[in-house]
């Protein structure tokens, strides 16, 4: 009788970038009132883990590093059916780049694995605020997990043999990879649809005590590798891009047709070979 899968899903609370505005005069981010969401890419990781648990048994632990208010994201994940939630929060973690983030998360995942070894660590393919896609590989490297990025499907897991087969998005095609557990999977977007939470899960989430670990509780060995101190990259400046010296030359005309004809004229004058290029393209098609 084989046991179920022990899975950890790393999620991140991010500002909803669709609603971020830049102050027109000061060029600073206007944070006030910007709602936070679970990084959308992480939801595919969460659903992939929940689906595996349904099929093979086991537990899904959601883990996030962030300020105390990041517990909102964890509570949401519990509402969707995750079994356990851990918030990694400590002022020593503040200002972490991806290297320092993967260091702290690795400590916490090891801690989770002390009672039952972790079989799969899931992350989204990247976050929408950092967009780096580096934390997943960082955790895999530190924990010596087999690294499977941009996974679109998990067609087979053989619990007895400790083997997993995945489809991985590569340039120009899909790689079918087979490796051993434990592994780290970063899930590709649009590969599944997150379930709605059941009523009992929602109620449980609402009442749940979110476990909060500081650096010591997470078993972090070297505090110097955390947060800003442990980050080799530093943001030296944040700025709005310079407008181009010249604005667009406006094409005038009384009607749409007149503007279109005038545009055709302008474009073919600026690029005399344009019509030739188009003719070649359309002939090829």
């Amino acid at each position: 009788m084989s046991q179920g899968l022990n899975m950890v899903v790393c999620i991140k609370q991010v500002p909803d970038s669709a609603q971020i505005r830049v102050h027109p005069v000061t060029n600073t981010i206007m944070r006030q009132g910007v709602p936070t969401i679970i990084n959308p890419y992480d939801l595919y990781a969460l659903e992939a883990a929940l689906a595996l648990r349904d099929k093979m048994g086991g537990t899904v632990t959601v883990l996030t590093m962030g300020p105390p208010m990041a517990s909102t994201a964890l509570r949401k994940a519990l509402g969707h059916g995750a079994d356990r939630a851990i918030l990694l929060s400590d002022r020593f973690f503040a200002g972490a780049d991806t290297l320092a983030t993967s260091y702290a998360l690795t400590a916490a995942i090891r801690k989770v694995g002390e009672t039952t070894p972790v079989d799969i660590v899931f992350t989204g393919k990247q976050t929408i605020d950092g967009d780096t896609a580096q934390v997943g590989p960082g955790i895999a490297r530190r924990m010596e997990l087999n690294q499977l990025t941009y996974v679109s499907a998990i067609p087979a897991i053989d619990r007895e043999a400790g083997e997993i087969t995945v489809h991985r998005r590569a340039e120009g095609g899909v790689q079918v990879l087979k490796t051993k557990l434990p592994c780290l999977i970063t899930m590709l977007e649009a590969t599944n649809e997150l379930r709605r939470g059941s009523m009992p899960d929602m109620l449980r989430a609402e009442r749940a005590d979110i476990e909060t670990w500081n650096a010591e509780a997470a078993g972090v060995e070297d505090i110097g590798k955390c947060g800003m101190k442990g980050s080799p990259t530093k943001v030296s400046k944040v700025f709005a891009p310079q407008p181009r010296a010249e604005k667009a030359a406006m094409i005038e005309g009384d009607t749409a047709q007149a503007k279109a004809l005038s545009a055709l004229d302008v474009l073919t004058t600026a690029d005399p070979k344009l019509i030739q290029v188009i003719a070649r393209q359309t002939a090829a098609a």
Partner: protein
Amino acid sequence: MAQAPNTPAAGRGKKLELPEHLKCYKHVWVFIELEHGRVHPVSWELLTEGRKLATALDVDLAGVVLGPAGEGTDQAVAETFHYGADRVYLIEDPLLENYRTDPFTKALTDLVNTHKPEVMLLGATTLGRDLAGAVATTLATGLTADCTELAIDPNRNLAATRPTFGGSLLCTIMTQQARPQMATVRPRVMAMGEPDRARSGEVVRERLDMAEEQIVTKVLDFIPDADTNQAQLAYADIVVAGGLGLQKPENIRLVKELAEVLGAEYGCSRPLIQKGWMTADRQIGQTGKTIRPRLYIAAGISGAIQHRVGSEGADRILAINTDPNAPIFDFAHHGIVGDALQILPALTEAFRNRLSVDRLAG
């Protein structure tokens, strides 16, 4: 907390000196992405960019080629010189036939530890990002993803600029106390130079020292994409795209019709992907595809920074928007203030007539 873009003051205040043992790190490297016997063109774009950095630093430019012995690898080495490298670090091994994280990470990490580059650039492809993340962690150095601008600062550090906050601002990131300074750049963000077929250079060979038994992950199969379904936006000569100004999903037809007449690829801005009006492979912008066409026609797209960084490499941009103050007119070359729903069909008609006249004239 990636990159902590909310703390712009992080690097200010004290001056950060490079530790003594890292001062021997020298030269600019570009990872040449060779897979299935072909090099991803982003590698040539990076060599062109790397040449500028090497010149600014007054050091050499080198390419790293990892692959099985054979024609594809030989060709990759030759072309790496054609696109500007002074030197190639080469590891030939059958284990490097198909990309897998472990052997590639070992190969690249070993090369870095032996030959010590100060800057290393990789393409921000699925392969490049997988590898860069693993290598940077192993080396405990800084890695900046998806850079849109690279420069050398007065202290000889790499200043890597990338969009932040979903593309609403840009930030410059430095790695002052670790080496190599690593960065990834997405395809088509940097221009590709003309190859010099006469150019050659020194090849430095190293060994992988790994056995198949040591690699846990096996490649069972590779299923190539059916080309017809995948948008070839990044390398298209002409691109037509629509944004929220299209108002309704059925109006995407107007973009497709103009694209068809122009023999162009079509795409859209991010909001249309979020609404599910087009598939994600057609998104133009920082989180989608970066394009560098000869002509880009943007209809009903406001021109947020995240879209701008994905499209301003176009030789010529024609923007159509009802709002004369839309930011897209700040970086487009030509503008039409008007409703995309009327201008698009008028353009289709105008080009169609012009092309048929030309065809008749032979």
